[in-house]
């Protein structure tokens, strides 16, 4: 290894400067501001102790948004891992469609969340979209503009759509790295292709499966913003206002910097705790040996 006094410092400095300025200071400031009453437009601040937390935690809107965030996180990320998992197992087989599928299933990576949001808002539009013929048969059967559940389903469908590429690629890479000898040994022992999915393939891609879940939980909480802002705007009646959207609305439309910072701080702690739990409880049980 090279020994040099100032060169490594110089090499790390540009990235570290950006990381400190645009990551650590904002993270610190969110926690700092949650103890102060901040006036918008730099009008001064005042230490208020835990007042902000009391205000946020006694607000039913916050709890509703938090609850919706958890429901969305569980349903959307479960689907966004299980659907690519099934597709990856299918594409891992030597069949005619597996090659085109490996290509096509990566396409959503190039479509921005907001773009697919705009498209899904149209496709699920009750008057001109996919459900329009259905709606003329049964009036009012599908209307994401009025029915909160319909709006929620639209969000989940759009999230799974854009989440397929990453999880599919990771899981497929895991499946393809399973040694052939193991598959052959299992086959000699009489395990057919169905049996091998559960006894060979799934246990051996646990590391990849674990990783996609860890990343997907954070991803579903944050990247849903673009979908909400383009499909539902948090409606109808706040039924799709997830925490990340509420923070944006409170901070940028309501100019409630302290409230938004306090919620940011709570959301950050939640995300970090979630990741830590997954690593300590699930991560340990996973066998990385092959």
């Amino acid at each position, binding site marked *: *290894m*090279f020994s040099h006094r100032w060169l*490594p410092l110089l090499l*790390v400095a540009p*990235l*570290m400067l*950006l*990381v400190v*300025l645009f990551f*650590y*200071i*904002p993270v610190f*400031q*969110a926690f700092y501001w949650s103890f102060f009453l901040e006036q918008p437009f730099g009008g001064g601040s005042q230490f208020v102790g835990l007042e902000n937390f009391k205000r946020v935690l006694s607000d039913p809107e916050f709890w509703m948004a938090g609850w919706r965030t958890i429901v969305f996180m569980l349903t959307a990320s479960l689907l966004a891992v299980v659907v690519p998992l*099934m*597709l990856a197992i*299918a594409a891992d*087989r030597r*069949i005619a*469609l*597996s090659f085109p599928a490996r290509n*096509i299933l*990566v396409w959503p*990576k*190039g*479509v*921005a*969340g*907001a*773009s*697919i*949001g*705009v*498209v899904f*808002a*149209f*496709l699920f539009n009750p008057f*001109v979209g996919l459900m*329009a013929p259905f709606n003329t048969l049964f009036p009012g059967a599908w209307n994401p503009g009025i029915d909160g559940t319909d709006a929620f389903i639209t969000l989940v469908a759009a999230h799974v*759509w854009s989440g397929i*590429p990453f999880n599919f*690629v*990771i899981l497929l890479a895991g499946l393809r790295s399973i040694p052939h000898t193991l598959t*052959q040994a299992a086959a000699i022992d009489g395990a057919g*292709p169905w049996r091998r999915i559960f006894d060979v393939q799934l246990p051996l891609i646990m590391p990849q499966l674990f990783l996609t879940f860890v990343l997907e939980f954070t991803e579903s*909480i944050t*990247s849903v*913003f673009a979908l909400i*802002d*383009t499909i539902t*705007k948090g409606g109808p009646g706040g039924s799709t206002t997830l925490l990340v959207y509420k*923070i*944006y609305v409170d*901070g940028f439309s309501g100019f409630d*910097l302290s409230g938004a*910072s306090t919620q*940011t701080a709570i959301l*950050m702690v939640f*995300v*970090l705790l979630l990741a830590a739990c997954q690593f300590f409880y699930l991560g340990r049980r996973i066998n990385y040996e092959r």
Partner: protein
Amino acid sequence: MVEKARSINITATLLLIIGIVYIVGPLYLTLSTASQSYEYMLRNGLAWIPGGELFANMSKVIHETRIPIQMLNSMTVAFSNALATCALSFLSAYAIVYFRIRWAGIVFALILATIMLPLDIRVITTYQVASNIFSPLNAVLDFTGLNSLIADIFGTPVHLELSVLDTRFGLVAPLVAHGTGTFLFRQFFLTLPKDLFKAARMDGAGPIRFLIDILLPLSRTSVASLFVLTFLSGWTQYLWPLVGASTPDMQTAVVGLARLVPDADGQVPDFPMIMAGAVLVSLVPLAMIALLQRYLVQGLVLSEK
């Protein structure tokens, strides 16, 4: 290996057909609706068959909206994000792996931690920092009492102000402050044989020469993978460009596309025109995926290991 696998192969084919329809269906309906007129859509709803209005709708987008200039912005943001991420993370990973420094572990952990809290979560305070990037410095001066000292000597305290909002730098810099690139390069450097380094040292190569003549050529595919990955992520960003740029001429194409949809209910929006916009906005990244798919897949896999 030969075995009877008819039932599973049929199931797998069916699954893949469903998956492909799920992915391609929305894209096809976007394209076919974009090629129909507004009146056609009002009469028939979304279009299952393509019509002849695609270029009329696209020229409407090009001439009546800011999408063209916003696509140029997206290009700049995505390209500089990719370039800056590749360069800066390459350098920092190089320092972490190839130099005998005691703080290498700490720096790597500090950079890696950025993956845990995405920009969308900390957008409120990142916006505040971007509105005056000297605010941390001012706060430090105030807090340590240096400012009152300066005020005593020079008459006024130091208060620097520089906003990077509404600038290209401000749109890109927070995206670059991310650890994936450093992680990817570090993992790649660790897989390279140690003898490479020893041989280079023996031949008298210094740190700069080793970096340029040996490491960089070897890392070509890793750089290409990270470039594709960060280009796509820069192009598809939404929340940061939405708040980081307030004038339409500075916003990116994805934000501009979302703005095409009118806020108010009532009249059915001009969906064919909006879909034509969606096609235009997604054209560049989709073309990139089609051409450079190998690198994208590799980048996704590498960023996980």
